[in-house]
């Protein structure tokens, strides 16, 4: 049996999720034995345009060019994997959705702003069907391997739909709320093994909201600390600025 063809693409991103692949170390070589990696612009020169078994797409859609590229990738790919939070939920890019685009463009590009047509920041599934989602900013390497295995076997992959707090408690961390700082763990979907809290920081919500977040409750908890309401909104919107009502 010939090895399945796999490619990596990026739209608007920091390329950090792709870098996680190079960071796998020698484990990467074992994976490369099982797949035929045909496109990975960051590392490879080859750029064939044929059909693909699996396309990993990193980054958000921010303009018409991204949109056209995404449709072209979808057309030639059997399976499409939204890779990292920029692609699955809009991620940090979608903070831009909180302000009028024209205002932001003017801010960054001054009187050159009109040269850079940008639209609302969108995750991939708002434009094309997506077969697998790998959340996280960056993705959690263990989950990448799990999803790749599932995709190679054409099996479904179930993303945990409980809060980061569950994993956090299993790691026996002292809750950040006891240390008088706010944490988005209660409303954020698990799957990262509470990465940030294990390292002494709070959860910033990078994997997106659980499907039934008690958001009002979370906001009440957050406001208990007498934070400016704008700061609370900012906190909730750091990763979730591209959410549409149908996404919840």
């Amino acid at each position, binding site marked *: 049996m010939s090895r399945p063809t796999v490619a990596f693409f990026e739209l*608007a*991103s*920091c*390329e*950090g999720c*792709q*870098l*996680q692949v*190079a*960071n*796998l*170390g*020698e484990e990467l*070589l074992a994976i*490369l034995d099982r797949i035929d*990696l045909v496109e990975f612009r*960051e*590392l*490879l*020169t*080859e750029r064939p345009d044929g059909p693909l078994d699996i396309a990993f797409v990193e*980054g958000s859609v*921010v*303009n018409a*060019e991204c949109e056209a590229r995404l449709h072209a990738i979808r057309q030639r790919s059997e399976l499409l994997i939204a890779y990292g939070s920029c692609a699955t939920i809009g*991620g*940090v*890019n979608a903070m*831009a959705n909180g*302000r009028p685009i024209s*205002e*932001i463009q003017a*801010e*960054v*590009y*001054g009187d*050159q702003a009109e*040269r*850079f047509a*940008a639209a609302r920041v969108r995750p991939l599934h708002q434009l094309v069907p997506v077969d697998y989602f790998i959340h996280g*900013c*960056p993705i959690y390497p263990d989950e990448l391997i799990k999803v790749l295995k599932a995709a190679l076997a054409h099996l479904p992959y179930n993303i945990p739909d409980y809060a980061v707090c569950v994993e956090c408690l299993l790691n026996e961390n002292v809750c*950040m709320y006891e*240390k*008088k*700082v*706010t*944490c988005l763990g209660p409303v954020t979907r698990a799957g990262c093994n509470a*990465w940030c809290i294990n*390292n*002494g*920081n*709070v959860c910033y919500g990078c994997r997106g909201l659980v499907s039934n977040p008690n958001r009002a409750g979370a906001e009440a908890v957050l406001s208990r*600390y007498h*934070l*400016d309401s704008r*700061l609370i909104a*900012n*906190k909730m919107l*750091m990763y979730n600025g591209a959410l549409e009502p149908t996404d919840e």
Partner: protein
Amino acid sequence: MSRNISINQQFLTRVEGHGHIVVDVKNGILQKGELQIVEAPRFFEALLQGRSIFEAQHITSRICGICACGHSLASIQAAENAIGFLPGEQTQQLRKLLLLMENLDSHLLHIYLLVAPDLLGVDSFLGMMQDHAEAVKRALRMKKQCNTICDILVGRHVHPISCVIGGFTKLPNSRQLETIQTLLEQIKEDLPPTVELVRQFSFPDFIRETEYVALVNDAADYPLLSGDIGSSDGVRMAKEDYRSITNEFVVPHSTAKHARLSRNAYAVGALARFNLNSGKLHPAAQKAAAQIGLRAPCHNPFFNSCAQLVEVVHCTETALQIVERFLAKGIDQSEAVIVGINENRSIPVQAGSGVGAVEVPRGTLFHHYDVDAKGIIQKADCVIPTGQNLQNIEDDMQKLVPEILHKTDKEITLALEMLVRAYDPCISCSTHFLKIEFIGR
């Protein structure tokens, strides 16, 4: 010789981010030599406005996955300057260790996986698996070791979790320090074959004198995390004055001069640092430079990869020294901080303006924030190394193309790709990029 060449190399590969090379030669005369940037815009500076200064590190780290720690450190430095916070010695040493690891990791990726394929005549690192499998394995092994060290220090390399304003939310214990030491010793064992690999490369013979810019200081250490801005043309200024060099970017597009200091263009990065500060490198790094025949001042941009190699040795040795000092003295765990967005008011905040200047893998990175008395960002500015190098790359292209006109289109394209790759451009840091493309045409 009269000859027409039109090269439009779309989607330059093996660089971070999207770049196009455009060359147009008519009747043997170069009409156009450009590196066009087509990165999708991400608007980071505007996103920061109105947010807490305590969120800036988390957000700006996401400008670039490759320099995630460098952006974090520049962001933290600018923020701490703005609010008037002074980090302690332990924090500064740990930050330096982190930066050394990132520069090491990035240089290894560049030398082994992005540049070596060109010089070994293969298409990519996959092609190297045939005849140079050992080198690929070594590269992946060393990268993994760097990565593991970053995991211990800050949770992960992309994107660091525990380095924040005020210090670190988690500090390594002595067992972890020993692990870091062991990993660094292992990396050190792989240095001789790494030096040997680069020694065997033969780089294109091309010279163009330009101005080199990097941090400089009056202390004995190779400046990476602090210092003034210095140049090979004798300029020295405080980092707070960075705009007087980089502001050239926003001149009206009728003038051709952007990112200029004393000449039409300047270069930042490993070669600039080497040219300005080679005397301060660790002795082992100086020895490596002698082995591969790199001497300051060097005006061949392709030799940037050689300067990176010299820094690979420097980073490994200096990191080892820092870890050994920590092992001898111990880490004061009571310095760990819990900050969040400073809900607990653990860090005093005042209104102000601050600049961070850090030598990241590709050159000097500047972050600049103005904050109000509550620590809310009023204005943010980030100037990335590749943006500063763009004019210099184009000036190189303008000189290089006429010198190699007798070659085939394919060879010219490869030479230009190699030139651009030598600078290790990181185009994903698009915050300031798009400004540049249209200026001066």
